[in-house]
């Protein structure tokens, strides 16, 4: 009579990652060669990725503030730990603290350069570690305006690119580029991203739905530099133009090189996360 067909009564559903937003920081160089807009877009994205490499590990607390059309607010709190591995592999552990009914739920993701993510979900109510598929990328993360694919690592290989030119955003000289998701399951036809020319940090992204209509705008602010190298934002706001809802992500207590090892990112650690 164990007929509950799936005990994961859990926010993230059986979906994807909440890898790191840290890799939202695409960044362009100032490429000088004569290249096609596609090559130039890719070069900028790759340079942004490369500049952020070498952080080792990172831990951070995250507060999500969900707002509906009537400005009613809801809070979600989580913690994210990340570990850089060999060959661009990234391991991430997300621990959910609120809402209280999902407290203790934890999601472990191994993301690779050249193969699909591997994911395990720990469901505390039944003490079960469940391997899950990476499907459902376009679905909302914890009921927010961020989709799972927005939360996941923004790897260079996940998109193809096109350089659109230079543009000034609120007085900051930026590169503007388009990126097209490689994943057929993506909820977007394309994204337009603005990166500041000096540090190659993403300041703004417009998301276009499958019909080509503007769906959401992400605004990233409060960048701070850590270890004299890695730029991290304090605030990310996603506004959904079609629904009128919005979500703010606030990053807190960001720490680097805390001494985490692969053992902090295995299935045993998933069970011990609290």
């Amino acid at each position, binding site marked *: 009579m164990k007929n509950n*067909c799936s005990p994961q009564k859990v926010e993230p*559903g059986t979906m994807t990652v909440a890898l790191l937003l840290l890799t939202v920081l695409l960044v362009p160089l100032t490429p000088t060669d004569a290249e096609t807009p596609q090559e130039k877009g890719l070069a900028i994205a790759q340079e942004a990725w490369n500049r952020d490499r070498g952080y080792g590990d990172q831990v951070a607390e995250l507060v999500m503030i969900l707002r509906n059309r009537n400005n009613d607010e809801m809070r979600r709190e989580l913690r994210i730990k990340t570990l850089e591995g060999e060959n661009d592999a990234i391991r991430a552990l997300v621990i959910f603290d609120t809402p209280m*009914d999902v407290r203790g739920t934890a999601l472990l993701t191994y993301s690779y350069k050249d193969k699909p993510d591997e994911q395990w979900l720990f469901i505390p109510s039944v003490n079960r570690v469940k*391997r899950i598929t990476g*499907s*459902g990328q*376009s679905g909302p993360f914890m009921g927010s305006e961020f989709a799972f694919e927005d939360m996941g690592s923004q790897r260079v290989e996940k998109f193809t690119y096109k350089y659109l030119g230079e543009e000034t955003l609120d007085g900051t000289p930026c590169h503007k580029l388009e990126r097209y998701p490689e994943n057929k399951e993506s909820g977007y036809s394309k994204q337009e991203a603005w990166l500041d020319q000096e540090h190659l940090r993403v300041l703004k992204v417009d998301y276009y739905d499958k019909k080509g209509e503007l769906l959401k705008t992400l605004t990233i602010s409060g960048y701070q530099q850590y270890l004299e190298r890695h730029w991290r934002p304090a605030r990310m706001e996603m506004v959904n133009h079609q629904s009128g809802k919005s979500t703010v992500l606030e990053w807190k207590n960001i720490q680097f090189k805390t001494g985490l090892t692969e053992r902090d990112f295995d299935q045993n650690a998933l069970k011990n996360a*609290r």
Partner: protein
Amino acid sequence: MTRTLSRTHDSHLFIRRVLLLIAAWVCLIPAAFAGEWQGNLSLEGNVFPSSPYDPDQLGHASWSVSGEAEYAHEWPESKAQLVFTPYGRWDPYDEERTHLDIRKLYWMKASERYELRLGIQQVFWGVTESMHLVDIINQMDMADDISGDRKLGQPMANLTLVNPWGNLDFYVMPGFRRRTLSGEHGRFRTPVPVTHEHYYEADNESMHVDLAARYSHYFGSWDIAISQFSGTSRSPRFLPQVLGYTFPPEGTFSLSGANINNFWFDLFRALPGSKLAPYYDLINQTGVELQWTGEKLVWKFEGIWRSGEPRTYAAAVTGFEYPFNSIFKSTKDLYVFLEYIWDSRGRESYSLFQNDIFVGGRLAFNDTQSTTVQAGWIIDPESGGIVTSLQADRRLREDLKLAVELRMFSGISADSLLTFVRKDDLVRAELTWYF
């Protein structure tokens, strides 16, 4: 060799006393360390549309309250943790459902190559959804919920060796936990009441030390585990007891699908003072868990080979899970499940399910209230019997959650072990407050 039928419950009483003593001691711990308490309280209402099988059982409606708390303290430098989770339910309609249990009370220490846990724990093994065949460490709290998903805390020492080639887990489990079952006045019970006299094959009864080991690892898309358990079975057989005489476990008298509908059982049931006595065999069980996770499709398999109950048998569950994402251009995801349940004993199984098909679905709304709707059917193609389960969950407020559940037993044949719950269709609503 004949097994002696001693029936002391002293040893079990002893375990209970020890557990209570530990609990009392542990209540002092929070005073010593700063830790964190959290928990929940639930109010449950039940409606049974049908009159019971036996007029002694509760009528059409009941309610109950339950609560669980968790205290956790972590020593990050030494990677150690202390966890304490007491649980309790009060049910004014069923004295067996009113109970206290220590779900968890353990100290844990982790290092690069091992993890050690001492105390009362909850351990889950398995991959499938409809049945948890391999899962054997913890006893089911069946009085609490017949789904079997709620488990009693199991005292143990558990060592995990973390190797590049997989995890090796060893378990030493002193102190057996008896299965909780609905009381005489509760629903979901056997046709004749169960006695409080429990019988064991082990000479030292519930003090028998059970042993288990498990290897688990993953290779790309594959997650695998192999386990071995040696000790007292978690699932009791039921021996008929008439006029103070208990039938021996060696006979063919234990309650199973093969005899539930025969003349002798009817006669037994008609005799005044007839009871069923739980009998726990010593068993060996080998379990295999396999899961292949594709980009969307998931294939799962669980199989066991069990000896000592008393005959040797095999059982397996296998099936698929598949997601339909963003259905109807919405943000909802639909997960579908299809599984097949097989038991080599067929009708002679003490298990409620053998050669059955499970079909299920789970609809996740992905909204801010985390609304989900689940449906599951276990179908016996031979008899046409169907067990239906529908469940809807929704967060009403940040600290309040509502679950509504419907369970139905239809077309259950008279010779199915499910026959005595066929009047126990249930509509349940549970409101949980988190603090």
